[in-house]
């Protein structure tokens, strides 16, 4: 198992890329949803 650290790093990198990207999408959606709701309220007033 002399190259295990490379295998572990590759395994972590793959999921880190997708996980970080999914987090960024989720946070952008949450911010946009707040903005949409706030504008809808403003327009109703």
């Amino acid at each position, binding site marked *: 198992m002399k190259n295990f650290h490379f295998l572990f790093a*590759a395994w972590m990198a*793959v999921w880190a890329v997708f996980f970080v990207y999914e987090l960024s999408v989720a946070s952008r959606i949450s911010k946009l949803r707040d903005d949409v709701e706030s504008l809808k309220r403003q327009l109703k007033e």
Partner: protein
Amino acid sequence: MKSRVPITVAVAALIFFGGYAALFIAPDERTMHEIQRIFYFHLGSWAAMFTALTIAFVANIAWLVTRQPRWDWLGVSSVELGVASCTSGLITGVLWGKPAWGIWWTWDARLTTCFILWLLYISYLILRGLIEEPQRRATLSAIFGIFAFLDAPLVYASNRLWRTQHPSPVLMGGKDAGLDPAMGRVLLVTVSAMTVLMLLILAERYRLEKLRHELDELRLAAEVRAAAPDSAAAKELS
């Protein structure tokens, strides 16, 4: 939202099983041993990338033909996922190259065309950020996206056309190519897991673009109302 829970659980189970199969079920490769197991995530990343970029290519053409905003939303969403998958493929490639070849990187045809593909789609995303007007942004980025996709078949064919440091293809690579059936089954699981994961995130990313469009329309309504509060247009937009 609740309807997504079973799909998310199924994808998580597939990913978990794929990871387990790649690390513990797949047979050991004779020359590279455990480091060859990177192959399952490496090829999975490229499969997800080619799927995402093919969707983007189709969406770019569909936008130019129909001018329906949903194709633009799908185009940019797929390109972002394609870039994420390409990044994952490049990182796993570098981490496999060092122990297998003794070098992190070399400018051979396969690696160079991959790197160019990554740069092209990063440029696509930068280009979109520079154009304010939505119609113009969608049209120019669709044209650029179609141009960028020309590199994708070149990436696929590069180690068939030229001699490269990168190994010859094991799948559909001619009479000397091939994969152990057990390895093939594990590869099928990991490729499916990564492609399905990519599609699941793509659906989320598409929702983000749809929300952005809704926000733009609401902002326009607010501006119109602020300019002429009693106009028919303001009432219609709000």
